[in-house]
């Protein structure tokens, strides 16, 4: 069953001066099935976080459709959208900043239960203890303030709050990038187990390919507001086709001294996303394979092998030859 389908999503942020706009997300499509993890990778500034926040409508998309559990929720008024809120939750990047420092763990996890699920104090407390157990914390933690917890425990409270309302979809916005290695691994193991137990779907946003590979069933690679490659985890890892994905893999350092190092380096740094042209490949100026036609048209995502979509003219022409 499809939990989420996003069609042609745009998000432009206007700048105060001169009618300029930041093109954070420029027309992306993807879908997530139930019990599935879609990993979204890309460098900082490519719009991954904006996508995640648009999906739960923390920010309103400029245009496009978000179909959640079979219903188009993009234009729903807030009152009607509220019934969807407990079904789509989000876990934030900074474990400490995402928790109210003046409330104890019990109040933090109770808040969505009381406001969204309309549970009374006693029932909600039972549920709090239950979810704390699910994230391997005990009742001892009920009356602790976030500052008394370690990083890993803070992140687990964040996850507990997200799962407390029994959501169908959780947006994981770089939940591990600020954690130390030990907590990072613990969090990944925990998330995997929770998915097995509850059948929840994840949209996992990260820049770390090693972490993404551990958790995701499918991967989509973003560059400057567009998805440039999408496919099942194994296909994308074993046969990256888009030049940007290749560069990303070449740059990722795996903990393996015998790693093959394909030299594939893009020129320069990521350009500014202000007033990006909407009709051509954004990677063309940096791409070592670019031809003259690359900067003239916008490549569409096309299925170049089963379950593997790539948006690149060069990849398309070379896959046809072979």
């Amino acid at each position, binding site marked *: 069953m499809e939990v989420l389908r996003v069609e042609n999503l745009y998000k432009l942020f206007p700048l105060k001066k001169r009618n300029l706009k930041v093109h954070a997300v420029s027309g992306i499509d993807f879908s997530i099935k139930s019990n599935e993890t879609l990993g979204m990778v890309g460098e900082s500034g490519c719009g991954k976080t904006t996508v995640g926040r648009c999906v739960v409508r923390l920010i309103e998309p400029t245009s496009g459709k978000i179909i959640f559990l079979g219903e188009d929720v993009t234009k729903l008024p807030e009152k009607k959208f509220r019934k969807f809120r407990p079904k789509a939750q989000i876990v934030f990047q900074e474990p400490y900043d995402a928790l109210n420092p003046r409330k104890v763990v019990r109040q933090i996890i109770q808040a969505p239960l009381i406001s969204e699920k309309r549970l009374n104090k006693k029932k909600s407390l039972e549920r709090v203890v239950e979810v704390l157990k699910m994230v391997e914390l005990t009742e001892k933690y009920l009356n602790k303030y976030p500052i008394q917890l370690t990083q890993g425990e803070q992140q687990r409270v964040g996850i507990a709050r997200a799962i407390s309302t029994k959501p169908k979809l959780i947006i994981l916005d770089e939940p591990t990038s600020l954690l130390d290695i030990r907590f990072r691994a613990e969090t990944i193991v925990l998330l995997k187990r929770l998915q097995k137990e509850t059948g929840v779907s994840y949209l996992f946003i990260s820049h770390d390919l090693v972490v993404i590979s551990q958790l995701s069933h499918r991967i989509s690679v973003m560059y400057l507001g567009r998805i440039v490659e999408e496919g099942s985890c194994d296909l994308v890892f074993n046969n990256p086709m888009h030049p940007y994905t290749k560069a990303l893999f070449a*740059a990722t*350092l795996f903990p393996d001294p015998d790693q093959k190092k394909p030299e594939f380096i893009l020129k320069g740094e990521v350009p500014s996303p202000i007033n990006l042209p909407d009709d051509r490949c954004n990677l063309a100026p940096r791409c070592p394979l670019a031809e003259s036609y690359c900067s003239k048209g916008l490549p569409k995502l096309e299925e170049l092998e089963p379950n593997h979509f790539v948006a690149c003219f060069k990849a398309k022409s070379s896959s046809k030859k072979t």
Partner: protein
Amino acid sequence: MSNEILTVENLNTYSPGSIEGKPIKILDKINLVINEEDILGLVGETGSGKTVLINSIGRNLRSPLYVDAKKLFFYKDSEDINLMTKNQDDMRLIWGRGIGFIPPNAKDILNPILTVGQQFANIVIAHSKLSKNEARDKVIESFRDVNMPAPERNFDSYPHTLSGGMAQRVIISIALFLSPKLLLADEPTMGLDVTIQKQVLDILYKLIKKIKSSVILATRDMGIVANYCSKVGVLCNGQLVEFSDKREFFNNYKHPYSKYLLEASFSSHGKLIERDLKLFKSKEVVEMKTDVGCRFANRCYLAKKECQLINPPEVSIGLNHYIRCHRSEDL
């Protein structure tokens, strides 16, 4: 041996805050040897003492921490320098040409009210007899070596206008300008994106090979160690628990803490672990004692009573491969 660069024997670092009247030992009996052109990767979690060790070796510790060592020898131009006997004024002659630093967070280290070119030129002038204009040319030349985009224009940029990758390039070119024999790099690529991290590390690697210096590189990223280092040292709460050549380490790591670290970075015998992660279930965490015993004992799956009570001995388990563990026979 003639090609040794640094010998550290029995180095301890203390903090005067006390437990039962005794100062707290932050680093415990560190022994290591660095040869010419070695790149030692120091790995460990946050708080395992990587930065303190680097600053102890460079004699750059901030008070109130203090260090004592049986041996802390630095060899430069076939001259033995006992770093322990040097005071801050003597060290200033060694820092720069002898020992160079690359700190983390390049942007915080650069002076925010001077242009990056100007602060670099000041260093150039202090160490040579060049005029201002000659120093400017030298700086721009060094910027070119680290692939700084538009070096002439960026000479007059202020640090806050640079991206993280560019600021890191400035720091690297400053640290390598005097061709130090030993470079102490503390998480040189923290907070950079993967593609920029690779660019920066490649340049750093190329330049240190050119000037033939040795490096101690503190990092949390096993990927960096596997790809750039020649030796590995694993730090656990201030004890150097495993020390070995890189290849030997990744093929034959032994210490429980090394296993734990590698599994936490999703690697086993150098290969990525596929989807079935079996992290060590840590036991109920007991308060760590800093005066006696193995500092991993409270989380180790092999720990016995003696591990808590007696300092673990250093055991050689192969050519240039040492671990500190009571249970080395059972590993």
